[in-house]
């Protein structure tokens, strides 16, 4: 238990690593349905005047938006939680049919030590449904692999003009416990 507290008290640096990586690759639009796991990255992006941030009502809006972003010659990023993957499947047919590059960063729930069992179905279905509709999926479990994975995923998306998702494991982001984390 004391170890667990020590882990929680450390300030994670991987959101800064993601921010620096997307900056180095000239992403200028970031759209999201928020997740606690993405909150620091969202704050970093919203305080950057060179990034246009768009809050979505549902994740599929972001898939359509990033088609427009690419039609206009810019690069965009979609942030969501694994439950949001269930909301985007038909819209991802645009990415497969039109072959436009898009990068999604998916914070996982229902995967590792989950507190809320209602998250588990989409946690389990997340990777297979993304792959079924034509997105490539890369997973990160450890902070030392964040930079290389995000960087490689972005290169893959934009060199191959296709949808790529990076799933950020609960092993990386920590497992949400409502009783302690929400206080």
């Amino acid at each position, binding site marked *: 238990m004391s170890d667990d507290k020590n882990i929680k008290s450390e300030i994670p640096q991987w959101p800064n690593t993601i921010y620096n990586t997307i900056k180095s690759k000239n992403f200028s639009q970031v759209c999201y349905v928020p997740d606690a796991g993405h909150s620091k990255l969202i704050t970093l992006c919203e305080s950057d005047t060179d990034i246009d941030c768009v809050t979505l009502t549902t994740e599929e809006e972001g898939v*359509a938006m990033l088609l427009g*972003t690419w039609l206009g010659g810019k690069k965009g990023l979609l942030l969501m939680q694994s439950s949001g993957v269930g909301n985007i499947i*038909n819209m991802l047919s645009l990415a497969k049919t*039109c072959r436009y590059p898009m990068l999604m960063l998916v914070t996982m729930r229902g995967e590792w030590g989950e507190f809320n069992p209602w998250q588990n179905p989409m946690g389990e279905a997340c990777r297979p449904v993304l792959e079924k509709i034509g997105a490539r999926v890369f997973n990160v479990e450890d902070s030392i692999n964040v930079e290389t994975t995000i960087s490689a995923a972005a290169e893959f998306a934009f060199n191959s003009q296709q949808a790529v998702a990076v799933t950020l494991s609960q092993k990386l982001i920590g497992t949400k416990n409502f009783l302690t984390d929400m206080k």
Partner: protein
Amino acid sequence: MIKEKNKLDRRKVAQKLLKGRKDILVITGLGGTCWDITSAGDDDLNFPMWGGMGGASMVGLGLAIAQPDKKVLVVTGDGEMLMGLGSLATIAAADPENLSIIVFDNEHFGETGMQKTHTAKGTDLVKVAEAVGFRNVSVIENQESLESFDIKTHSQNGPMFCVIKISNNNPTPVLPPRDGAYLKDRFRQALLGKKSAI
């Protein structure tokens, strides 16, 4: 409800809207509006969507943010707009002044057997847009107001949202190219030049 006297012909409306369009970037929602806009002339700066129902307005938002010096026009149907109602809130919050959304409202799902949509049963899309934060909203119900409507003038102080009440006839489709990758590359090359392929 569409009044008998207010049966604007959708093809003629599209042709009137896009007359002298120059470099306006046009996105269309799937179905009838694709054929309408193509009947006014297939254009490299058209992006007619054959899928992704509910997504047309959001494609317009991404494009409008990426190209702030260009006017972006989304033309879509009432059924397509109803599937993406949340995107109206997203767009109003993002507040892109160069984005216009025009809904051709025939109060029916035209591609699937002319079932009534929610706009035939009381939903007022203009009020929805207004309620989520659009300030520049209008409705066109007759030839007179269509004649006085000019997209370049009315799209100032955007984002703009307009509903045009059209007749529910279903004219023969005028098809644009259907390959999505081709349409995307054609659009990008017309907008960004040959370097867009590198």
